């Protein structure tokens, strides 16, 4: 399965590389988009010196962790986005169902957007810059926590993209509202979760666990405490939370596939 995945993805990357100028322009476009968004955030936090008691460098840790994860998730799972939507509208999902492979796997490999690394790269630069300006005490455990956190974040965002796509089985169109949780979630968790009201905090921690993408890990790295009592050690629970959420999304996908009725002629 893995070798098949790599083969299919390899083909997608080669096909994108045929249009080199387009590829680089889009990569730069994505990096610049998230870059200028960060500049706006930095100017705002700089003007007011801190947000909810967090300095700009501390916010940079939050921002960097979420951006890296979100960019990676978009890179691997945008097959569930526009290409899948088009498939639903044309009725060509029928073809997917006849092939001897899981539909989830086929849709995921139908697209691989290397250019989304623009966002991740920009996020990584912010994260490194922030770390240089903070006296983070790097222990072995914390070094291990970082890849786990990024991977969990990526899985949470992927699950959201899958959920958005699954709604297509009923509505034929990916609802715009899912942007609230993907793009909106990424923007929301770029600031400390403690600045929001209880409703938003609880939704983004326990219903749509985007808050787990970066907040507990940042608490742990920066040795801060959450004013509402979320322990920093919750950072270690992020992989579990992400797995449960992704499993739920996978289950939802199965229900969607079973409800699929073809469109088209």
């Amino acid at each position, binding site marked *: 399965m893995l070798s098949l995945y790599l083969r299919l993805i390899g083909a997608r990357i080669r096909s994108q590389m045929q249009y080199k100028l*387009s590829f680089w322009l889009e990569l730069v476009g994505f990096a*610049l988009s998230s870059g200028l968004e960060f500049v706006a955030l930095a100017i705002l936090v700089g*003007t007011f010196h801190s947000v909810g008691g967090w300095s700009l460098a501390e916010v940079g840790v939050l921002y960097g962790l979420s951006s890296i994860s979100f960019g990676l998730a978009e890179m691997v799972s945008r097959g569930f986005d526009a290409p899948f939507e088009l498939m639903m509208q044309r009725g060509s999902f029928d073809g997917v169902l006849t092939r001897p492979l899981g539909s989830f796997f086929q849709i995921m490999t139908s697209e691989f957007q290397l250019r989304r690394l623009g966002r991740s790269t920009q996020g990584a630069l912010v994260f490194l810059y922030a770390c240089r300006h903070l006296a983070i005490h790097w222990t072995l455990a914390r070094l291990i926590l970082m890849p786990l956190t990024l991977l969990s974040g990526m899985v949470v965002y992927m699950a959201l993209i899958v959920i958005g796509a699954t709604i297509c089985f009923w509505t034929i169109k990916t609802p715009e509202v899912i942007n609230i949780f993907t793009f909106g979630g990424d923007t929301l968790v770029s600031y400390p979760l403690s600045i929001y009201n209880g409703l938003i905090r609880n939704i983004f921690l326990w219903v749509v666990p985007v808050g787990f993408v970066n907040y507990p890990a940042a608490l742990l790295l920066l040795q801060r405490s959450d004013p509402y009592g979320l322990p920093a050690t919750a950072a270690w629970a992020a992989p579990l939370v992400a797995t449960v959420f992704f499993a739920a999304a996978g289950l939802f996908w199965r229900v969607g596939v079973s409800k699929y009725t073809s469109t088209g002629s």
Partner: protein
Amino acid sequence: MEFPGSTATGISLLSAVRMPINLRLYYEIAIRAFRRASVYRAAYVAGILTNAFFAALRCFVYLAVYHAGTSVAGFSPNDAITYTWLTQALISIGAGWLAWDLMQTIRSGDVITDLSRPWSFYGYWLSRSLGERCFNLLLRGSVTYLIGFLFFAARLPHLTEALAFVVAIGLALLVSFAYGFIVNLTAFWLIDNTGVMLIANIVLTFFSGFLLPLAFFPPWLRQVALLLPFQAITSLPAEIWLGHLTGAAVWRAFAVQAGWALVLMLLAIRMLHFAMRKVVIQGG
């Protein structure tokens, strides 16, 4: 009526760029675009929810950075909240992102049909855009703002400010349309201009004051922003709504907007001429 479409030579295409004075036609195009936009109820409900969510999110950020009673760069906390809801409401007129529909017709080759029709190509897309955006402003924009008014006490302007705002919005629509048209037109040269559109989009949202009021920018960056056309789309109408611009400053804002509307429109039409001479159209 002579229909120059079938031969589609350079000459007949160029004649399509000229502006025939037939306001009735453009009015009908705009009305149809208005009605078309009104049909997609799920789309605008989703749009309102998304805009309201982002506005609320930014308000929480502002509430967290402002300390009670303070005013920063001429913005009180209520100004910042009002500004946020207003700019989210203005997304529907092109403050937040560029429309892609013209680019898609260029990429598919359908553009040739529109070019060969006996109307002004620029006028056709302008009417379409105005019709659609007026609907979005009236429904999507005002409902979004109403939410801000009810839950975050976003400000309502006085009558004179509101009237000036309406004028400013009209001019902003012309500027944002012309900019979008120019960016979409690059598809004639670059078959895949997604990257250019992404970059053009973020430049618009950043320098128009959509992401952050220009008042918060460091002085040198604000100077740059004030030299660019984008403030005419978001920042100037918003400052009028906030009551930050009064008297002569309002007239100056109108002049800046009208100047940019004219310059960008001429540039867009010039570029269209140029595209007609140089370019091979896709499809068949």
